[in-house]
């Protein structure tokens, strides 16, 4: 069988588990996300449990990765190698954080919740795609 079919299946499975996990965690709900960020108001610590649980499991997978020569369905790992902490990283993350707080959505939950057919999340995802395209095709290519 073609290796790309395995890669497709792995990515599909990863996406399903991600979307199911998000649904179970309660983080599909922008109100809960904003509740976590509302440290000066009525604070909801749930997101810390979500992130904590995710990082612990991911940490173990990174340790396993270090003992593997290559991933199961590819010749090499595709891990970011950039080590530079620059203004793009900081300004980009700050802009992302502002949007995250204003809407209560980050890319994962926004895309996953499209399945519920709520008009506001459709609008958010369209705006997000416009924002991504503006950066990738216009801003990062300016001379």
């Amino acid at each position, binding site marked *: 069988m073609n290796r790309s079919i395995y*890669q*497709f*299946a*792995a*990515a599909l499975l990863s*996406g399903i*588990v*991600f*979307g*199911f*996990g*998000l*649904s179970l*965690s*309660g*983080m*599909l709900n*922008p109100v809960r996300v904003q509740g976590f*960020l509302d440290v*000066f*108001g009525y604070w909801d610590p*749930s997101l810390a449990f*979500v992130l904590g*649980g*995710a990082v612990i*499991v991911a940490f173990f997978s990174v340790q396993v990765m270090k003992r593997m020569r290559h991933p199961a*369905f*590819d010749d090499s790992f595709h*891990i970011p190698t*950039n*080590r530079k*902490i620059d203004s*793009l*990283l*900081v*300004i*980009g*993350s*700050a*802009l*992302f*954080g*502002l*949007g995250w*707080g*204003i*809407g209560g959505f*980050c*890319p994962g939950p926004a895309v996953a*919740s499209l*399945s*519920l057919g709520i008009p*506001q999340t459709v609008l958010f*995802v369209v705006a997000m*795609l*416009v*924002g*991504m395209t*503006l950066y*990738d095709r216009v801003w990062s290519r300016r001379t």
Partner: protein
Amino acid sequence: MSTYLQSLAGGMLIGASAAILLLLNGRIAGVSGIVGRLAQGIGLTTNLAFVLGLLLGPLAYLLAFGGWPTVEVTATWPLIIVAGLLVGFGSRMGSGCTSGHGVLGLARLSPRSIVAVATFLSAGVLAVTIVRDFGL
């Protein structure tokens, strides 16, 4: 199941999802990266498969628990547009979002991701506080 336990279990599944993509395909499960590359037509099949799975996730939840997960949007329409533009532009500029930097970056103990997470958490707290204080 208590709500915190449910959050922890959901989080661990998100970590498992990242483990699947990392150990099988050697890729980082960062949603802004995956969606951003998909929008540019890069790595079409696997990125499309992940997004398709992401859409199926809430459906699997519906089948398992007999109801959709709760989604309550309180932001007004103009603010939703502003938020979407900022999230899209900022996550591409900063090379990641809550999944890429937040989950895998922290798991890899990447200094870049630690800076990114500290920055977007602070900005998020600032945004929520401002929106609440101005009653937007």
